[in-house]
């Protein structure tokens, strides 16, 4: 396996770990809750 592939796989595992930590600390629900609100940032009155 080439060095580039190894780097990609290491990055993938680190990223997956970050997702896992984020999930464990409740970030997903914060994101989902925010996404379900109409925050109106796009029209400048959010």
């Amino acid at each position, binding site marked *: 396996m080439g060095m580039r592939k190894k780097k990609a796989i290491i990055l993938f595992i680190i990223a997956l770990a970050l997702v896992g930590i*984020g999930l464990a600390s409740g*970030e997903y629900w914060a994101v989902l809750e925010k996404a379900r609100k109409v925050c109106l*940032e796009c*029209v400048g009155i959010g």
Partner: protein
Amino acid sequence: VLNCYSCPSAVAACPIGSLQHAVASIRVRLSIGESQFGLYALGSLGVVGSLVGRFPCGWFCPFGLVQELLHKLPGPKLRIPRFLTHLRYAVLALTVFILPFLVLDAAGYGDTWFCKWICPAGTLEAGLPLVVANAGIRSQVGLLFAWKVALLAAFVLWMIVSMRPFCRTICPLGAILGLFNKVSLLRLTVDSDRCASCGDCSRACPVALEVPRRPNSPDCIRCLKCVKTCERGCLDYEFPLLSRPPRSEQPAP
């Protein structure tokens, strides 16, 4: 990945919006003992980036499609100077990380600077439909919305004369995913021995790359038009989970 926060039917948020909200609320969250730093959004970008780099820019982004369609309109065409393509890193650093972290309101929260002041994709895909469809929202919009519509109009004009100006000069999502292009599992390969330097691939490239010299540049949106265009078969893509016969084994025309 590409849903704007502002879309009422969004089931998942734009990762750039999520990152800004996470950065903007770090201090408040820390003060109440919550340790949420936007790792979920950052990690999601890392997962996509390490697998396929900027592939979503070339194949999924609805704003990219709008840009390509507008560029098909007839008229004079302009190249985008190379130095402007570095601007997206400054936009990413300033509006997604630095300003949301440093500039706080009385309650200790920062602002989502990119969504609020810049994002023309949000204005087109979420802001305008909301304002058109909802009289209550229409009555509340003010100067900030006028600024965003003006910015969108400027980008629309730029899209007609230049190919994908938003992706190449401003988009912070593309800036993050592009950083993974050099190491991602999906990559372009060049058979230099076969390349006749005809330039067909570079002319087909929507981001004006010299493809044989910089096949895995952070600017590449992985649309694979160059691979399709190359008649000699010296350009190809590689992805470990897809087994396909190497084009280099085919005879050159």
